[in-house]
């Protein structure tokens, strides 16, 4: 069981809006007859701050509500989004250095592996996905994909 109120989320919005408010003031709000570059960011962050404070107030005033965890996700799969994010960060960092084909093969290996498929299927699927996407984007659509150390 967990608390359904979103106190942390509301607080983050409040902090973000105050930061944006300060940044917009630094940019210069200007006058009404000549609004400056910070005018719209100021209005937007002010609106954000008001709504965030309102949300925080509602959440604080609300009784603690116990809510069930979302159904559907198996505990073993709960970490999958984190793994996907980590793999994508690594992919972005390696793409320029190792080239498209090699990094995409690695990416697809990692992603297909999360589906608990047979190793042979994972390897074959990754090879096909990398080569087919390379053919589609590099040859048919003319996207210059990074070559890296292998040159493709």
């Amino acid at each position, binding site marked *: 069981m967990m608390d359904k109120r979103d106190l942390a989320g509301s607080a983050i919005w409040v902090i973000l809006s105050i930061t944006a408010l300060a940044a917009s003031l630094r940019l210069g709000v200007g006058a009404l007859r000549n609004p400056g570059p910070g005018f719209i960011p100021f209005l937007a962050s002010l609106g954000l701050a008001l709504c965030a404070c309102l949300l925080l107030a509602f959440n604080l*005033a609300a009784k603690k509500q116990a809510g069930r965890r979302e159904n559907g996700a198996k505990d073993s799969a709960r970490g999958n989004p984190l793994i996907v994010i980590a793999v994508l960060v690594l992919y972005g960092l390696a793409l320029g250095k190792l080239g498209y084909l090699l990094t995409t093969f690695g990416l697809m290996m990692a992603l297909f592996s999360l589906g608990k498929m047979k190793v042979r299927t994972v390897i074959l699927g990754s090879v096909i996905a990398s080569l087919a996407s390379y053919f589609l984007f590099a040859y048919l659509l003319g996207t210059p994909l990074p070559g890296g150390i292998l040159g493709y």
Partner: protein
Amino acid sequence: MDIVSGLFQGFSVALRFDNLIVVFAGCFLGTLVGVLPGIGPVGAISILLPITFQMEPAGAIIMLAGIYYGVMYAGSTTSILINVPGETASVVTCLDGYQMARQGRAGPALGIAAFGSFIAGTIGLIGLQLIAAPLSRTALKFGPPEYFAIMTLGFVFMTYLSHGSRIKAAIMVFAGLLLSSVGLDPITSEQRMTLGIPNLFEGIGVAPLAMGLFGVAEVLKNFETLASGNVVRVKIKNLFPTKLDWLQARWAIIRGTCVGFFLGILPGGGPVIATFVAYGVEKWAVRNPDTMGTGRIEGVAAPESANNAAASTSFIPLLTLGIPPNPVLAVLFGAFLIHGISPGPLLIRDHPDIFWGVVSSMYLGNVVLLILNVPLIPLWVQVLRIPGKVLYPLVLLFCVLGAYGINNNVFDIFVMLAFGIAGYLLNKKGYEAPPLILAFVLGPLFEVNLRRSLLISQGSFSIFITRPIALGVLICCFLLAIVPLYESWRRGKPRSRRLPT
């Protein structure tokens, strides 16, 4: 140029072999996306946007528009067959559609959804071509205050009609406005909120943002349940509705079309809202409202007609005023700009080939979609058998390639990923992404028109009161903002005891 000669020119563009191919490709991809639960039209259009970079502007817009109304056609398939909406505009179709399928009437449900969509889509198109030209001429008289008022109405409507908490929807609108101010100031060209990162000097791209919020966020969510997907097994027969089905559904189709037609035009409206309203109207109009939700064909015909009529008429504000009324068209608006074309009152005059080409292609697209969605429905059912563990890694690969392909820059992949993570977390906490993307796309226009209005009036807000159109629209905004507060006051229940909805 009158409508007839415009249509002649439009069909001469749409019937070119290359454009026929893109009409078919757009409808095919739209149907595919509509059939597959998860990736909606915003995600699909943003993911496929880079593919259109090499195309002519008319062909590119024709294809992206085809994806949009293709999704509207096909979204009902999974709603009816497995009670899982292919996209948000088909959520209501689940209520009666799935019940019909359980009673062995999946065929007529799918059939009436397709025929209703065809009729409503075509009526919407006729409305589009009749209204667009006069509205464009009227829009030429609009100044910054009118544009500012219409965009404000869009934001207020989006917040008012959100599915969840209105405060959270408002937060998303303000966050979208803030994000849209990253980059150069549109009037003084000063740098704003770029954190000194050179890649942000030109602002955040709409495509990586949309791909992240809609594509990557959805994939991350689906990766949580990757191994537990069930393979769909259904049999479909008698796709053509009987005479009795037609008799029962005819008024529902007409009512749904009317609702969709008008809600599609409103800024902040669109197909999703139209389906809910159409279902509500149907419940009010039928003899035994309690039987709605038990497998009545009207419950399928009305929302499916409404979302297709709305999909057609939502092009009216985009093409005539240059104001996208919903998030899908906000991304399409971005596509117009990427191809160097500004949608708005001058589009018909300056680019008649594109305007009439797109309108005419939609007539062809409606026919293509009828073929794709009636005789070929068993083929789409096979698509439902693709397991998520194969599909979602491929969608993610397309997102990565799409983000990279915009500027051939890895930075865009990181932008997309950042918004993907944000979208995933926001979704978990009950925040909706559509208000953010609409505010993000409209933000620069909103800013320019507000600042210009204030410059013209030398800082006086009276400019919004002395101009009747601006005043009328702003009064609507005020009323829409006041109604929820009045409702909660009338109920007399202290909302502070409950979490805000």
